[in-house]
């Protein structure tokens, strides 16, 4: 799973030569195989490394504050979202929905590495949502739709259909 994600990320970043990866441990943590020194371990670490390789430091944030925010959401992806329980999913969606209320992307007004990574991590959850739930988490859905249509992001994942008009207006009785 994480490996396909990394290869999609490479394409998104415009890296020509694909890297070799393996996994370690029960949780199948990705490891970047490299000729020099020990391999890098962990999705966030590798993704950050790839962004630097691709000369896209902007994706990691333009200043210290932004970099911290991006790192925070990258960590959120691997530490909170991955392997969460069903109950957690509801809380995560609710929190993200509130957070994204006044934002286009996770770090504000432009895309960062956190967007594709959280998108990859949320995909299997959003796919399962009923239309009604998608409307309940309207801001998440909007952001999600935005990211999946961002050039080069989607790759290995099927598109999720998002309706732009509200269907369940009756939800406000």
């Amino acid at each position, binding site marked *: *799973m*994480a490996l396909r994600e990394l290869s999609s990320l490479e394409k998104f970043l415009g890296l020509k030569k694909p890297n070799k990866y393996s996994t370690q441990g*029960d*949780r*199948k*943590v990705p490891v970047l195989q490299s000729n020099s020194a020990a391999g*890098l*371990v*962990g*999705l*966030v*670490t590798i993704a*950050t*490394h790839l962004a630097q390789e691709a000369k896209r430091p902007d994706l990691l944030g333009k200043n*210290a*504050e932004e*970099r*911290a*925010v991006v*790192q*925070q959401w990258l*960590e*959120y992806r*691997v*530490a909170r979202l*991955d*392997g969460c*329980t*069903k*109950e957690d999913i509801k*809380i995560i969606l*609710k*929190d993200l929905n*509130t*957070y994204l*209320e006044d934002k286009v992307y996770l770090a504000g007004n432009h895309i960062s590495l956190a967007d594709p990574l959280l998108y990859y991590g949320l995909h*299997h959850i959003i796919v*399962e949502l*009923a*239309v*009604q739930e998608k409307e309940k988490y309207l801001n998440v859905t909007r952001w999600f739709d935005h990211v999946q249509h961002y050039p080069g992001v989607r790759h290995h994942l099927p598109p999720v*259909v998002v*309706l732009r008009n509200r*269907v*369940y207006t*009756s*939800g406000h*009785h």
Partner: protein
Amino acid sequence: MKLYVSEGNPHCLKVLAVLETTGVKCDVQHVNHEEKVVPFLSRATLPVLHLPSGQFLFSPNAICQYLFEVSGKQISKQSHQWLEWEATELQPALMHALHLATVQGKTDSAKALVAPLSYLEQNMSKKTTAFLIAETVEVADIVLWAALYPAFLERSFNMGEQKSTQSWFESVGSLPACQASAQSVFKGKGLEVLKAYLQKQPAPHGPQAQHRDSHSGSTGSPQESEVSDRVMTEEEIETAEQKWNQKIDCQSKPERKHPILPEQGKRNVLITSALPYVNNVPHLGNIIGCVLSADVFARYGRQRGWNLLYICGTDEYGTATENKAREEGLTPQQICDKYHAIHTSIYKWFQIDFDFFGRTTTPRQTEIAQDIFWRLNERGFLQEDTVEQLRCEKCQRFLADRFVEGVCPFCNYPEARGDQCDKCGKLINAVELKEPQCKVCKQTPVIRCSKHLFLDLPKLETSLEKWLEQSFSAGDWTTNARNITRSWLRDGLKPRCITRDLLWGTPVPHPDFAGKVFYVWFDAPIGYLSITANYTDQWEKWWKNPEQVELYNFMAKDNVPFHSVVFPCSLLGAQDNYTLVNNLIATEYLNYEDTKFSKSRGVGVFGDMAKDTGIPSDVWRFYLLYLRPEGQDAAFSWADMALKNNSELLNNLGNFINRAGMFVSKFFEGMVPQVSLQEEDRRLLAQVGWELKQYIQFLDKVRIRDALKCILNISRHGNQYIQVNEPWKKIKGGDTDRQRAGTVTAVSVNMAVLLSAMLEPYMPTVSETIRAQLQAPPAYSHHMLQGEGNFVCSLPAGHRIGTVSPLFQKLESEHIESLKKRFGGQQDEEETPKKQSQTTTQNDAAPKPSAAAAAPVPQAPVTADPELARQLTAAVAEQGDKVRELKGQKAEKAVITAEVAKLLELKKQLALAEGKNPEPAPQKGKKK
């Protein structure tokens, strides 16, 4: 910039130590653990750094990195990697261990830490530098040191065994910044400092728990990995094992003997579901809203051994029936007879197990309604008033609201009804209609005064409130029922008219009001009493017995005020010791796909059509109950129904029960094998027992949908249990393995029996089929639902089961697609203009352009525009072709939907351009 921390919070040590190390200037504020600092997080999370930009950092590691960076230090790749490892591997294990040690007082709590600690030790022993990464302290050193600090405090964690880690830990800890911050958080004390904080955190599951990737190999439904494994205590496990071994003497469920009457010393429960109005065929929303929900609860109550009576019937009086009779050329009585039979057969097909299903047009109804009326009158709760009403001189009668049509005074819609405008939705007083017309003869009615009787609700308000307060606190009222009732009271009660100038109703016995009948809302709820009276002469034992009887009313939310305010006022005013509602269970609305059910447009599934779909009644029941609109509106969706059938019923529930039975048949010649319980089995028994207890607690509170989930959870546990133990492999192994296969099979098949008992209220036929296949003694299912629930071994070793066969069929997507089309209503037809014109000519129901053109069209008075119409006709044809093409190519649903929407919009414009009314015309030929 401001840093928020709380006392005794292990995560705060990191950020405080980094703050000390870097010397960054920042306010530090101490707050409570529960303080919500970050506005978008629903759980209180600390520490938090409020950045100058207004953003919040709520991840301790991100805060540390930020502080390091603003102090001008670089963060190396290795540091990043260690921080990620700390957050994903070390923290979950650490929190789990700390929780076990401080909150639960477990001694073997360090187990979870073994793997991450040995990984750390390995790396520590290989390093050649003074610190983890370099000769100087990096952010990773401080973060890891702070994370491990509490672990080193706890002696039982044996941290001393990690030699290299310990020496690194000591050198980081000797830094002045670390010493100072450790002192400020722990104050020289031990782990107990953290207890208050840890207690408030949700119990963390171990580091290995529930990781998605590690589960993807197992089979079963996609939800399988979502079963949250509750940690069972030793006590719960022991109780479960005792129950399992319980020997019960087979007292079977008492037979139902009619008439059922309240009995001293028993729990006497009277259940009603809102009386369906006779002139409509009920749709799925009506069915889940009242009769089906009440049926589940009644079946459950009977299983629990309550002395219970479930009453319902058709509500038959009123204007709508008169209208319908006129339409179909029958008398009102004939209409009632016809539709009463339709209702009866629909509910029979849905297996609604009423004790009695009656009707309101009976002599008993007249008798009881008139009695209540006289008692209200004698006690001064009725008052007279005159009302202005429309009267048709030609038809010689006052016109009920629905018998008048005219122009809406608010939006000028030409076909507004006397009570409401379909266009703008506003309520209308019939006399305010412009250009009113009698619906029957099209004559203009005149305004006349008519004398009517009013129920004096303001006079009854005090006793109503007193009673409500008590019923609210003692009984189960759904939140919407409470809210609707409160809002009615808050707005203040007004006198309500209880008489009407109609023929088809219960006659008002007062000589001054001869020729009038009772208004349906006064009359209909009295139907509960009269229907019971038609069931037994001793009906008063139920209805005038509040001491012994608990009354449950089931309904959709639109009916709440009549059951919680108006009807109780009638009964309170009559002062005859009536049984008043103790528990009021109201559902929200069920929509159909993305629209409303509509008989006239042919949209949605109606009760009489459900059986034509070929989908079994039990599956319909399951799906409707699965999406029962509790708390918020729900939507019926064909695709979702297929999904739930295939994933929950077929792959989860059916799969488990079938596998359990098949193992007995195939591996043990149809005889249940011996059980020798191991730790894992005992834990499973406890888990199942816990779900059963939940199920009972939910259903006692009429949380029907939640209880259904417990059933599905049990079979999920069962599937996992079988999957892990692989009896099909073990059966081929040695003696120990064969014995293990036997235990797993026997436990599983007994779980199937429990499931059949729990399924009875939801899917009675499936429940009976399981029992029959397993030859399970019926008495047990009754026993299993007593008290807090008893998961007993009901099929002992040596029990012979019957023939096992699959319980559910897959719903294929082609079948579902065809059903969706069939019940989609006119929209589908409208895509093909040809077909539409055919239906229009056949039914001749659409307004003729010439006739309608004269009347102004609601939104904007548009006159016909032939040129525009011509262009639009071409556009409609073109768009129609496009839609057909897309459908032919099986394009994505959303794409088709969007194109269909465009088509409909074009058609609307076309209709306007032609000067027609764009609203879909009712199609009379499509009633059934």
